[in-house]
């Protein structure tokens, strides 16, 4: 195809110019106006500025990360330092001594926490898992499911102190006394949203083919949901429960007006009971050095348990929760 006329003209003119090195640039240079030169300088300054701001932004981001990681490391280090010094065998086996008497431990608080968490799990885990089953298996896409999910989020966001006074009003007042049961109920209710959400997410990850295979065999729906779908998703569901467990294990506010705390040994559900975070709170605010010591030790125990649980959850989730289900 022949080139257009204007092209021909230009090409021929170009080929007729002498081949002098940098001739074109010099020619161009003659044609640059003062305004264009200013623009070029501005470009250079601007480029420097852009490079500088890029570096500054990177520096600030790194600084922010350091500033964030630093208090974390500081808190952990201080906890370990103070707590390890105060930990002793007595901590795990003895109950608190009267004020002013040195020694004693938090054995009753550890037991109390265990009892409260057991009661809480008995309430929170079945209701949470059932809610999750509903959202994933029966209510997918329905308006009711959206509403339930939203309500679970609302429940999740309720401040723990408000939960405490609500349960106080609902259970402690009619009962007439503080009790481990009311504390357990408060903790259980706080577990429900987390368990429900993770159960739903894990069940949704089970491929539909597995469900269809079970249905096509003539297995009743309830059996198929429980024995096959839930069983396939069970590693994930269990980690969800552990996560909820770790979260409520450190809760104090809901227990102040329900379990109330107890300086002595208690295993009954209808009496006030001690709990590890509750005891730490009381001791931290007390004026006695000995109790401060115990508070640090308790804090160390609590944080070690929680970190273990969270790390375990992370480990299981990162290894692939549904082995073989894909």
């Amino acid at each position, binding site marked *: 195809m022949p080139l257009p006329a204007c092209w021909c003209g230009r090409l021929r003119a170009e080929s007729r110019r002498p081949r002098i090195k940098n001739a074109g640039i010099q020619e161009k240079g003659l044609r640059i106006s003062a305004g264009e030169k200013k623009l070029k300088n501005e470009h250079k300054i601007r480029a420097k500025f*852009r490079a500088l701001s*890029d570096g500054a*932004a*990177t520096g600030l*981001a*790194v*600084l*922010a*990360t350091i500033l*964030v*990681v630093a*208090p*974390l490391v500081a808190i952990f280090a201080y906890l370990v330092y103070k707590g390890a010094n105060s930990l002793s065998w007595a901590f795990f086996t003895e109950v608190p001594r009267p004020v002013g008497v040195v020694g004693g431990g938090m054995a009753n608080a550890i037991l109390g926490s265990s009892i409260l968490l057991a009661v809480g799990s008995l309430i929170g885990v*079945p*209701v949470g898992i*059932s*809610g999750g*089953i*509903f959202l994933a298996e*029966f*209510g997918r896409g329905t308006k009711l499911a959206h509403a*339930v999910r*939203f*309500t679970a*989020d*609302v*429940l999740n*966001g*309720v*401040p723990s*102190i*408000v939960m405490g*006074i*609500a349960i106080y009003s*609902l259970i402690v007042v009619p009962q007439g006394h503080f009790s481990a049961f009311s504390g357990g109920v408060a903790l259980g*209710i706080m577990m*429900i*949203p987390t368990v429900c959400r993770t159960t739903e997410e894990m069940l949704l990850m089970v491929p539909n083919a597995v469900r269809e295979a079970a249905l096509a065999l003539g297995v*009743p*729906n*309830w*059996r198929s949901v429980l024995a096959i779908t839930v069983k396939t998703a069970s590693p994930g569901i269990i980690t969800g429960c552990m996560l909820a467990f*770790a*979260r409520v*294990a450190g809760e*104090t*506010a809901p227990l102040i*007006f329900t379990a*109330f705390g107890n300086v002595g040994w208690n295993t009954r559900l209808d009496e006030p009971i001690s709990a590890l*975070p509750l005891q730490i*709170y009381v001791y*931290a*605010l007390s004026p006695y050095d000995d109790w401060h010591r115990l*508070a*640090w030790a308790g*804090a160390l125990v*609590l*944080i070690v348990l*929680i970190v273990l649980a969270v790390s375990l959850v*992370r480990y299981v989730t990162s290894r692939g929760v549904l082995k073989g289900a894909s």
Partner: protein
Amino acid sequence: MQEIRLKKLEFQTDPAFENGVSNAEAVSPDAAQVRNYLLSRGNSAISDGGFRWLMVLCALSIFGIVVLIATELMVRSKLAWGQFGLDFFYKAFIDTYSHKPMYWDPVNGHFSALPFLYGTLVSSFLALLLAVPLAIGVAVFLTEMCPNVLRAPLAFLTELLAAIPSVIYGLWAVFVLVPLLREHLNPWLIKGFGWTGFFGDDNPTGLGFLAAGIILAIMILPIISSLTREVMTAVPNSQREAVLALGATRWEMIRMGVLRNARIGIVGAVILGLGRALGETMAVTMVIGNSPEISRSLLANGSSMASVIANEFAEASSDLHLSALMELGLALFIVTIIVNAFARLLVWAVTRGEPASTH
């Protein structure tokens, strides 16, 4: 029309298979009865229906619990509501002798929520002021700048911050942060910035709004940071590449390609952090000083809605006192619901729905 040749498989020519009869083994009588067993199982409509209703019931119980909590709070705060009405939230009783506002007077039955609203808002916003830049900085670093090896451990560390219980933060704050403020930071602030009026020198304890704000900042940091990371990762790579292709530096790419697209979600993350800060109890109670006063100085003692409930509920002196505390709890409940719902909506809009701009 072409003929499709029907290729016979080998065994099909075997006379034994002429009619497709296979040499089935003899079965035991029990095995042969399997079909009858299954036929006799009947239909599972009842158990299926029952199971379904059990699941629905548990899901509905979540509604029930929230409704129960709300109604209980409303019922118990009726007394205070009847007494003070809406004035509870914005008026204060002026003491006739000192002519100063008397906010929270259990002895004489005068209750006003003003100092607690003030304390909650001041500590929360101070926390946001400190936490948001840091959280976004961490999120930007972890998402865009971090070398791959460091990403997982650093992310894990940040999330570990979220796992620490509030009471342990409080413990650390009481024994480490407050002395630090008392001995080093506060005097420096008073000396350098006392003229602004925000740093008065009449509270030498180190407790107060500033201490509460700092510990709250540390506590809400991981939430804002992890959600910001989530929305930033949700921005499609095509956006980043488009900006880079125009010759942008890395920071410009982050600013224009990622943060601009994710800004709705980041706002949502910040509001979620605010929601958490509003309801935080234990750490705040331990360091805010617990005095129902309003003061311009950040170093003064104060009180928040959650902290006053935690402190006074167990020893409330009268029914009116208890009811006033319940009303505070109800207010906290409603505010946190609204804030959290709004925040979730914003985050959902970015991560689940389509991103703001086209691919």
